[in-house]
């Protein structure tokens, strides 16, 4: 799941070298934290959070496949 978010985020931002994803697994739940450059925040959130929502939808589908839940938090 970590790599999935990395690939997605890196293709959206201007500073792919500043994309960091951390993953914590707690039983059935995967907690992911995505960190990007301040100037790239808009690129992963989007207008009214549309991009963030798309990222979460794709992540949820991938996690569902393994019967897991995934939570994504975006931090600046």
């Amino acid at each position, binding site marked *: 799941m970590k*790599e*999935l978010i990395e*690939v*997605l985020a890196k*293709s*959206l931002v201007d500073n792919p070298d500043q994309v960091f994803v951390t993953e914590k697994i707690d039983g059935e739940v995967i907690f992911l934290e995505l960190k990007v450059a301040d100037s790239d925040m808009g690129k992963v959130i989007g207008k009214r959070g*549309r*991009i963030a*929502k*798309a*990222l979460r*939808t*794709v992540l*949820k*589908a*991938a996690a*569902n*496949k*393994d019967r897991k839940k995934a939570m994504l938090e975006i931090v600046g």
Partner: protein
Amino acid sequence: MIRVEQTAKTVDEALELVLSKYKVSKEDITITVVDEGKKGFLGLGTKEAKIIVEIKEESEKRKEKALEFVKEVVSKMGIDAEVTLKEESENLLVNIESPDIGIIIGRRGETLDSLQYLTGLAVNKDSSEWTRVILDASGYRKRREESLIELAKKKAERVKYTRRKLSLEPMNPQERRIIHTALQEDPMVTTFSEGDEPYRRVVIALKK
């Protein structure tokens, strides 16, 4: 694809010339060395190096990017899939075939729509114009279109029968468009959308 020939004292020099002349980077070209060149001795037997460079155009780069992006994302989702791309009237159509097609499509196509949106953003990130990218999975879009047209016609009949307007479930802009188009020619009913995204829905009403 643009093809150029360049000669210089060495291959490296020829390459530098091409890169600065056409303002392209090494990732966007393929180089074929025709002649390595020879230094010669005291001006004798000197031979210039010659290379042929093929420069990828932006449209080709976008195509590669779309295909690569979808392939990589799907594989990172842990899904085996075959991804193909074709161009249709300025749009890029990416099709996914997989035994796990249901996961790629998602509930009412929500995963497919999200993947499509993200692919569009990734493909158009550094380009000046916007190329539309359409993702499909095992012909899902076509099937969905057919069932939406059928739904539209059925609901229109209901409106005519009850003489009361009715609203459909929320749909995205592309799906609403399909409904509007399906009933455009119907002389008895009219359609319009109401509400805010993502809960915007089509209303079918009797024509006054």
